[in-house]
């Protein structure tokens, strides 16, 4: 019984952590129409960032500032933002699929850096041994994980509310205006390139936050955690749920995450021995099929975007 409960705690913690990344992607793709093909890079910057800033300096390790946890998370989020700023500055004013290519490239470069820059990132072995806040106080893995689940859930609620507010604010309408018709937005005196850059950086920082929470949960990060499939998983979560709709983003995350975990369990239990090596392969095909079929059959997702009218207009709307 306790096994099932602790598994459920793990499942929900990861589901909520991923939801935060999907919400960040929703700001970029759903609201603004920016294609980020390298979610794993910004997630990874946050994940590595929190351990580098918050972890203690170990033998053979160049960096380890041992900052208090809130500062470590802030540093991780800023690191993801900095990475987004560099990529965005070069690409957000160009042909739209350049951003897709450049972000896809940055994910490969970040993973490559994590694998090779051993003095900083620990190389293929990754970074281990990070003292999580309150771990010594609670001193029981089960209760700690439960407390961490609540913490992640609270962060998710906060991020969700911030994004909902952005969505209904004038800035949110500007994002959608740029997505729908850039020239028209420009004719109203707005600067699409700048606004796109802002949305791109902010969305990437949210992904960084998600990565930081991920690395905190495991107190460990390695290049294996930031491989390209992570980007595609997060994309499939957003599109299944419904891009442009924050509720859909969270809903889609939990559905796809359950499908991923569930299919993994079923395959390890029931697939013949010679197929066991190919479980990952089958799951990758599944993610690919989810993406393609959703685009073909239900491009708006399960919970489509809702038309948002300004609250002040809604108030004076005639009966």
């Amino acid at each position, binding site marked *: 019984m306790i096994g099932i409960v602790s598994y459920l705690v793990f499942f929900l913690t990861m589901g909520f952590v991923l939801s935060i990344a999907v919400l960040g992607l929703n700001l970029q793709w759903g609201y603004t129409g920016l*294609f980020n093909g390298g979610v794993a890079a910004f997630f990874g910057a946050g994940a590595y960032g929190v351990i580098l800033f918050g972890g203690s300096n170990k033998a053979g390790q160049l960096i380890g500032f041992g900052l208090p946890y809130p500062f470590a998370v802030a540093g991780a989020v800023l690191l993801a933002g900095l990475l987004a700023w560099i990529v965005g500055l070069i690409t957000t004013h160009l042909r739209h699929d350049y951003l*897709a290519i*450049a972000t896809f490239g940055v994910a*490969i470069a970040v993973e490559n850096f994590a694998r090779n820059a051993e003095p900083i990132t620990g190389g293929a072995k990754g970074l281990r041994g990070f003292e999580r806040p309150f771990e010594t106080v609670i001193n029981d893995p089960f209760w700690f994980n439960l407390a961490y689940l609540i913490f992640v859930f609270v962060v998710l609620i906060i991020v969700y509310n911030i994004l909902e507010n952005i969505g209904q604010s004038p800035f949110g309408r500007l994002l959608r205006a740029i997505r729908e018709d850039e020239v028209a937005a420009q004719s109203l005196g707005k600067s699409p390139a700048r606004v796109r850059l802002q949305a791109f950086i902010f969305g990437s920082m949210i992904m960084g936050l998600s990565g930081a929470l991920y690395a905190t949960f495991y107190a460990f990060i390695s290049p294996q955690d930031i491989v390209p499939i992570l980007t595609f998983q997060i994309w499939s979560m957003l*599109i299944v749920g419904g891009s442009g709709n924050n509720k859909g983003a969270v809903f889609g995350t939990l559905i796809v995450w359950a499908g991923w975990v569930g299919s993994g369990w079923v395959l390890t239990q029931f697939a013949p021995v010679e197929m066991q090596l*190919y479980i990952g392969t089958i799951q990758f095909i599944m993610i690919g099929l989810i993406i393609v079929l959703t*685009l073909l059959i239900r491009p708006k997702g399960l919970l489509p975007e809702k038309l948002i009218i300004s609250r002040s207009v809604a108030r004076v709307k005639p009966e």
Partner: protein
Amino acid sequence: MIQNLFDGILVGSILSLGAIGLTMVMHMLRFANFSHAELLSLGAYVTFVFDKLLESMVPALSQTIGGLSLTFSLIFAIILSMGVTGVSAIIIDWLVFRRIRDSAGPLSMVFASFGVALIVRNLISLIFGLKPKLYSEEITFAVRVSLDPLILIKLDQVFVLCMALVIMLIFHFVLSRTTFGYALKAVSENPTLSQINGVRLALMIRLIWLIGGGLAAVAGVFYGLNNQVSFLMGKDLVLSLFAAVIVGGIGSIYGAVVGGFLVGLASNMALLILPSGYKPAVPFLIILIILSIRPTGLFGEKK
């Protein structure tokens, strides 16, 4: 140094072949096709199957040519595979991209191409296994061209380079001497106007997939000859192909050829100053540099 130069030119010729199809699709259908590199591995595996089939059906074909490790059956297999891969590209377009083209924006197609790449790559590994394959089990020895500096070149590599150049030359004549070449140019400059002049757009799109897929298949086989045939081929090459297209300028076929060679050279020359582990990141740096100093590439048109 000279070894890196030669390796760079060799890899460059392979990238050029792959980038031609990618640049045509990116220009005509206006989307970055992340599944294009999977056509290279598809072509390489289809060739592998045909090669083994032909060898078992006509044993005489399994003779090697000259001092190469290549067999006659492999040559025929490549030609068959070009057709199969080209037709597969048309089928993928018909199944996925055409439908999305009709209903949504180009970025949705970029998105779908990620999904297609995942499906194709992993289906290949499901069918052929995770272990890489070789066209010939025979060990070929490299010819030592000089001792100091040490330069090793395989005859196969010389053959690959020559064939790549010949194919590009043939394609050049097709572009500059045939009605099809003119029609392609007309469509890429102004699709609407070219249709008024009797160019069938739908047919041109199919031909672009057919040619792009065929050239990708050759590139995949050459890459497989030079390294090994692996389902990860597409994943390893996709960024280099995009770098080649962006360096050359989207839509410029000659640009893609030059871009392919430049990216191949730069990636191999970078090894002189970078540890080899960083090689996969080099195309990304090339893309960033080109986009920040000359986003239209070498031969791209201003927009």
